[in-house]
Each structure stands twice: as C-alpha cells, then as structure tokens.
C-alpha cells in the first residue's frame, strides 16, 4: 500500500467540503496552501470517480456527490492512485502471503473510515473573533516575506538605490489605497496601528485648530482609542461632547446638528462599530459637518473593505483603516487626510509621510497591508454575500434555539461579520471561558472580562441595562469561517447557556 502526496492533499482538500453547500477550488487551495491547478487536477479525478460533482454558477465549485459518511477513504485513495501492497518485484516471493494480509488489513481500515471521520477526528479550533484580529491570509504572507530580504533593506528616505527602491514600492502601495478609496495618493499616510491613526486625528486636529475652537464631538460608541484620546484632551482644556445613539446604535443626527457650535473643530464617529457592528450613515453625517465647516473623521477599522467607501462622494476629511482586521499583519494601518486639512503630527522626526508621521517605514507590513486590501476589494461582493448569509443564519438560529436571547445592534445596517447577542440570566465571561473549553473563541461586553470592571460602554449607550451587557457575546466571523463551524457552535451554545442558567439564582 502506498499513499502519496496526491491522496494526502486530496483528503485534506475534501475535508473542506464537509458540511459546505459549495466551495470553490480557489478558496480551498488558498486555505490548504495548495496550487489551485494541482487541486483542480485532484478534484477532476475525484469527479471522474463519482466522489465529487460540479456546481455551476456564481457560487460554483465542487460538492460531495454523496453523504460524507458514505464515501470511504479507500474510494478516495483508489481514485487518486493505485493502492496496492505487493512484493517489490511483483512475483510470488516468499513473503507474498504476509503482504497480502497487510493489504487486506489496510483495505479493511480504509473501508471502515469515511470522509465524515476526517471531520470528527480533527481537533476543532473555531475562531469567531475576527473583529478582534484576523489571521493573516497565506497569500498576504507570501507577498510580504521577500520584503524582509536585503534587497529591500533601504530606508525610504535614503538617496541610494536601496532607498529609492523601497520608496518606489511604498508609493505604489499608496497609489493602490488611493485607488481603492478614490482619493489622491498624497492623502494617504501609513501608520503603525488604527490606535495611532485615531490618536493622530484627535490630538493632531485639536492642537492645530485650537485657535478656531476647543470643542470636539465624538459618538457615545467610539472605540477606546478615540474615547481615551478625547478624555486626555479634556485634561488639556478641550471640551468633549458625546452624541447619543438609538437602540440600534445609530447616531442621533438631530442631536449632532444641535451640538455643533462655532468653536467645534472636529466630529469623529466610528463607521462600523467594533462591538455591535452597526454601520453609520456617513453620507448624512459628512453632509452635516460640511455644512457647518467642521472636520469629519471616521474610524473605519472594522468596515474598511466590508462596506464600500468612495471618499470622492462622501464628505470625509479623515479616515482610519487597519491591516490586521483585513487579513494583513498587525502593526500596519493608514490614515487618510484630505488635502488642506490642518493637522499637527503626533510623531516628529525625519519628516516621513509628508512630514505628518516621522518613522522609518515598515516596508514588508505596508506591502502586506496593500495586498490584503487588494484581495479583500477584489473578492468584496462574493465574500460579503457569503458572510451575510452565514451571519444571518447564525443570528436566526441562536434566537430560535435559545430562549431569552436578543440581538444587539441593527438587524440590517450591520457589518457582514458581526453577531452580538445578549442572553438573560448569564454572565459573558463565564460563557466565553466555557466556550473556550470547546475550543470556540468569542468575545464579551461583560464587565467581568474588562480590566475596568465596567460593562461595555457601547452596549450601555444603546440603552441596555448593565445586566444585559454582562450577558452579551460577540461572535465575529470571517474569510475562513465555515458553515460546519457555525453548526458546531449552534450545537454547543444552548448547552453552555443552559449550564450557567442552571447555576444562576435567577430562574425564569
């Protein structure tokens, strides 16, 4: 018996089809780090053997021709190679009967195992915390690695050819982002994190425009890096107003209009909320800010490449986007600054990034962030459609199978990857830890899991009582999430909730 690479890759690739409606060869090849052409050859052989069939159309690809439990590993291996154990010289050698016995034993084992076993025997680790950080896309990693070599070791500010080569690459990256956002390349600066971009905006606009006024407006559901920057500015004599949101997390636009004053210098509103996924109406907010002559910044860390952003059509002066939320590496982000915006840099030094952000540029990470954005933009419509389908499937089934659970955030104006649900009479940290034992990674808005022991300010801002915020879980899905994983979560979650409801002194 001989099992070659073909069979091993074949079985690995097939495991991706378990529990799936359909999956394209490209997607599987990407996940399993295989060449799509090679995988196509394997799959077409399996199709000939009747193990797979083709599905045409936009969601096209291969599917299993039979239930996984009815396809034995022997069938698969036989289809891909001649699976025979025999004497090396194919003659009736002395040991022939032993080889025949081994062959029979092997066949028996391979016939007793089916594709369904591939699924069950796999150590399942289910990552549902893509909003916290995404795994790096293998394609992105591949693109990034050569840029660590000596060839690209130059500082972009150096005049020699090493420096100019690096500098040219950065400019190409800048152009790519400019094209994606429909802005000018010189309006993009690269930073090391969304936190840095947001700090630059809040502090940079505040200090550059304080002659005009010292009033800044943010929403009540900002990420901590905007909120804490604003809190710090308060200690520097700036005044901060927070605009409330409705029960879905949508900004109160009338309140915004009323709050803008002659001395208001900046409005900063998060685009897609990191906790509840609510997506704000940037067009209306931008229009209000434009009419009143106030800078408008949006933190698009979660929404970038998930919601189309054509900045030529939106009145946005500053925008933050981040690499590690879109399958790029951590430590890379950008800030869009519209030409003519008065802003003071956070980092002073060698004058990189048009003098707005001194620091030697992190070439591999910028290249990788760019690649990640290109992939996400190219796959936008299909990926978003798939995610929304999976997201709504998960929401619908949790609400159906678990009593006293309710959705946080907006039912439709929400990020394609965000699911946030509160469960009555349970506490989020204990749910999170219990799910971790099942190797399912999620996040919670409970105070008990935060360092401040305060429940999520975002959930409270939508009008939730503290106990409802404590009982919240955020599931965030992504490119590599499968329906099998979601079904497994749906199997485990009711048991977990039930366990802690049994423990609770509050019974229904």
């Amino acid at each position, binding site marked *: 018996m001989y099992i070659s690479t073909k069979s091993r890759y074949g079985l690995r690739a097939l495991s991706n089809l378990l529990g799936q409606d359909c999956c394209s060869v490209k997607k599987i090849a990407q996940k399993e780090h295989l060449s799509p052409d090679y995988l196509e050859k394997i799959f077409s052989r399996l199709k000939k053997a009747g193990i797979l069939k083709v599905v045409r159309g936009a969601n096209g690809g291969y599917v299993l021709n039979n239930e996984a439990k009815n396809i034995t590993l022997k069938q698969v291996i036989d289809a891909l190679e001649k699976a025979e154990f025999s004497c090396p010289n194919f003659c009736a050698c002395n040991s022939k009967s032993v080889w025949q016995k081994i062959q029979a034993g092997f066949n028996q084992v391979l016939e007793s195992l089916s594709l369904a076993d591939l699924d069950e025997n796999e150590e399942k680790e289910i990552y549902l915390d893509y909003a916290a950080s995404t795994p790096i896309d293998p394609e992105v990693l591949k693109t990034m690695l050569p840029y660590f070599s000596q060839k690209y070791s130059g500082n972009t500010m150096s005049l020699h050819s090493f420096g100019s080569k690096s500098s040219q690459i950065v400019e190409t990256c800048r152009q790519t982002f400019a094209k994606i956002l429909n802005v000018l390349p010189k309006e993009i600066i690269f930073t090391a994190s969304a936190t840095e971009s947001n700090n630059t905006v809040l502090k940079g606009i505040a200090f550059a425009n304080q002659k005009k006024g010292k009033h800044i407006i943010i929403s009540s559901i900002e990420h901590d890096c905007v909120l804490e920057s604003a809190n710090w500015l308060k200690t520097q004599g700036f005044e901060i107003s927070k605009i409330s949101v409705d029960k879905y997390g949508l900004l109160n636009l009338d309140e915004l209009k009323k709050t803008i004053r002659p001395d208001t210098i900046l409005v900063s509103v998060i685009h897609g909320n990191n906790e509840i996924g609510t997506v704000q109406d940037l067009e209306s907010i931008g229009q209000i800010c434009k009419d009143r002559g106030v800078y408008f910044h949006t933190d698009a860390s979660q929404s970038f490449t998930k919601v189309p952003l054509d900045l030529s059509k939106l009145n946005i002066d500053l925008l933050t986007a981040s690499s590690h939320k879109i399958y790029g590496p951590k430590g890379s982000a950008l800030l869009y600054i519209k030409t003519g915006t008065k802003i003071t840099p956070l980092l002073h030094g060698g004058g990189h990034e048009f003098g707005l952000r001194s620091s030697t540029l992190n070439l591999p990470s910028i290249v990788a962030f760019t690649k990640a954005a290109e992939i996400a933009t190219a796959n936008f419509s299909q990926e978003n459609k798939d995610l929304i389908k999976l997201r709504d499937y998960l929401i619908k089934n949790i609400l159906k199978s678990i009593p006293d659970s309710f959705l946080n955030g907006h039912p439709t104006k929400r990020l394609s990857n965000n699911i946030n649900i509160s469960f009555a*009479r*349970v*506490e989020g*940290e*204990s749910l999170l*830890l*219990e799910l971790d*034992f099942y190797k399912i990674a999620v996040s919670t808005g*409970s*105070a*008990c*899991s935060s*360092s401040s*022991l305060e*429940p999520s300010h975002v959930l409270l801002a939508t009008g939730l*009582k*503290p*106990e409802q915020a*404590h009982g919240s879980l955020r599931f965030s899905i992504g490119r590599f999430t499968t329906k099998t994983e979601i079904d497994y979560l749906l199997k485990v979650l009711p048991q977990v909730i039930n366990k*802690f409801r*049994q*423990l*609770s*002194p*509050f019974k229904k």
Partner: protein
Amino acid sequence: MYSQKVLEHFRTPHNFGSMDNPSTIGQVGNLACGDVMKLYLKIAKNSKGQEFIKDIKFETLGCAAAIATSSVVTDLAKNKTLEEAIEIKNEDVVKALDDLPTIKIHCSLLAVDALVEAIYNYYQKTGQKISPDFEKKHNRIITCQSRLKH
C-alpha cells in the same frame, strides 16, 4: 489569567443548585455589577450539641472567579460548626484556589459575605445572640450592598 484550581472549580463546581427547605439563605451582590451569589445552608446539631453546616448549596450568576469562589466556600464551610464557619476569611478562599487575579479578589469577598449573611439570617431567625463583631460584619456587607445598588 486563572489558576488551574479556579478553572477546575469553574468547570465542575461543587455543591451547586438550590435546596429544599434550607435552614437559612444568604444572598449578596447585585445584577448591575454582574455577580450575585446565593447560599443555602442546612443546619443540624453534632454529637456535642453544636450547630454545624450539614449541607450547603450555592447558586451564582457571575464570572468564572465568582463561580469558583462560591464552589470553594461551600467546600470550606461544609461540616464546620457555625462558629468555625464565620471565621472563614476571603484569604482562605483565595488560598484554596491557588490565588486569584487581583482584579477578581472582590469575588472571594462576595463568597465569604454570602456565608456570613446566611449565618446572620439564621441567628436572627432562631433568636440567637449576635456578637457585636458579627453584627459589624453584617452591617459592613449591607452598607456595601446598598452602595452598590446606587
């Protein structure tokens, strides 16, 4: 972040659930803070005629530390006389769990408070004398509780 001991008690808590006809109940914490603990005690007399905790059960809504400290306090209190039980300190709970993260120490206090309250309620119900020290302990707990509610 949590010790193995905490995770063990959290995953398979000891003495959890409600109790039919308990001798007394102690409940502390509140929903807004995220932790509520309820202890049920069955009290009987031992051969020397002292009252002791014959059975103890808990119900807790809260984080892993809250559940683990509740579980441990039931272990520590079970079969102890009431006089011994009121001497259990939150340090004992922390020690039995091989330490707790600093930010979660308040959970161990909550567990001990629930026990104190259960015994206090029992003394009151049965008309037994309450020492000034014990009265003080009880007062600290209820002031703390009412402060938390606002």
